[in-house]
């Protein structure tokens, strides 16, 4: 006989949680299920480039190739840019890609895993955390492509490099938060997914991905303010300035705003998710 004296108390299954209690519960789930998270992340990272001859190098080639395309496009449209421009595009594309993939993966974490959700119970937010976690690791590895380029441009390593992981983490966190907040709505109505996919595509042009904040003409400074309302602008700039070893060139107010926006969107997204998740599973 198993010893069940310690758990003989009847506990409500899947009891509804208040907004803050949901957050606490999510934290507890993350700590008690770290084995599962570990396993899932490892599986994702290891399997992403399985059965391809170039394997991990794809995570370096892909942003390189993409940057090549954007560079040519930019030269055609706007003429000769500054010499380090290819590096800025690569970093912009990678950071934005991390954000939009995190958002998309978190938003579809319930709909994509319908089969598993209906057969076995474990905290469903883990799906979102593990896919964002593996994207973070892969993007982190991709940033190594900057090392040879830094040598090429004669940029030495600096303490600013510490800003790179911070910027990436913020971009991933923001995507995770918005995605968690939309995940339950997406179960009820898939229009959410299509609409947000459009938004992330359009948002790329509104964000400093193919341009840098420093490139925005000073005469249009009023416009710059509105572009910095986009919380992803600061993380992208952090990654770039970190590599270059220079200051952000963005006022402290906007930096604070962006960091707070990323953290708050995560907290609210997580609360929304825990509040509705148990109720929408039956609609899968």
């Amino acid at each position, binding site marked *: *006989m*198993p010893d*069940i004296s310690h*758990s*003989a*108390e*009847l*506990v*409500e*299954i*899947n009891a*509804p949680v208040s907004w803050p209690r949901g957050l606490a519960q999510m934290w507890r789930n993350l700590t008690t*299920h770290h*084995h*599962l998270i*570990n*396993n*899932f992340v490892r*599986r994702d990272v290891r*399997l992403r480039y*399985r*059965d391809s001859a170039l394997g991990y190098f794809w995570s370096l080639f892909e942003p390189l190739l993409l940057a090549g395309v954007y560079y040519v496009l930019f030269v055609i449209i706007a003429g000769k840019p500054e010499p380090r421009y290819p590096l800025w595009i690569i970093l912009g594309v990678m950071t934005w890609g991390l954000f939009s993939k995190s958002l998309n993966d978190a938003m579809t974490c319930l709909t994509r895993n319908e*089969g*598993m*959700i*209906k*057969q*076995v*119970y*474990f905290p469903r937010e883990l799906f979102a955390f593990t896919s964002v976690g593996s994207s973070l690791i892969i993007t982190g590895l991709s940033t190594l492509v900057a090392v040879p380029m830094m040598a090429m441009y004669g940029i030495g390593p600096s303490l600013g490099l510490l800003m790179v992981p911070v910027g990436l983490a913020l971009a991933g966190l923001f995507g995770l938060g918005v995605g968690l907040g939309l995940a339950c*709505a997406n179960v*009820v*109505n898939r*229009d959410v997914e299509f609409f947000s996919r459009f938004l992330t595509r359009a948002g790329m042009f509104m964000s400093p991905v193919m341009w840098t904040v420093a490139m925005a003409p000073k005469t249009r400074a009023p416009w710059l303010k509105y572009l910095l309302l986009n919380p992803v602008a600061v993380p992208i700039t952090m990654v770039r300035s970190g590599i270059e070893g220079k200051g952000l060139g963005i006022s402290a107010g906007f930096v604070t705003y962006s960091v707070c926006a990323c953290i708050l969107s995560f907290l609210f997204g997580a609360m929304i998710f825990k509040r509705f998740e*148990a*109720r929408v*599973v*039956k*609609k899968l």
Partner: protein
Amino acid sequence: MSHTTILLDHVTLTFPRSRIKRGLKEGAFLRSFGIGASGEETFTALDDVSLEVKQGEVLGLVGRNGAGKSTLLRVIAGIYRPDKGVAKRAGQVSLLAGVGVGFHGNMSGRENVYLYGSILGHSPRDIDRMLDGIIEFSGLRDFIDQPLRTYSSGMKTRLGFSVASAVQPEILLIDEVLAAGDAEFRERSTERIKEMVKDAGSVLIASHSLGTIKELCNRAILVQKGKIAASGPPGEVVDAYVPPAAVSDEEIGSRKSASAT
């Protein structure tokens, strides 16, 4: 001294019957989020179900397809939250259903044991400890380091069942997994389930195999259209339940075609 391990108190659960209607007419978009008048068709899977299971009970669930047996088990497992009523349980639970969910074809059998084990809530150290027994029971020692995509579907089921049944939960929920693999493995898995049933605190078995219910259970309930239609000794309940011939023929057919693929 036997205490209650599962308690369902007037549990009702309805599923939306149809997917959302397309188009923007009559506010279908808003209505899908529950805003505005709801004209949604629903299907009541569990209708005011109350049930108490005590320590040491082995409860059989019989009933037609779609009667609500699986849904009942999933409410207890924590997958669905009741719309009305309260569900409570004492102790950790394990649901044997959809054996091998989360299996990945590009990983070896051994890696999949760890992956599936962690989905079921075991730490790598627990799995280290159980690994030998799992491989032994599955009878797949020679294949365990091959990628799972090279396995036949029967082999996958064997591996999945071996992992899923390697633990000793306090509350064991079994949903129709008794018919897995070839005849020899089926026999062994039935034996394994009998052992688990003996050791677990409480067991719920949903099955169409009425013989199994009679043999393993000490109580049975008949689930009909989301309600508990009868409850009592397995022999009586099973005899009271006459599976419609047309349905069981259809089932045999679908099971055959499923195993053929």
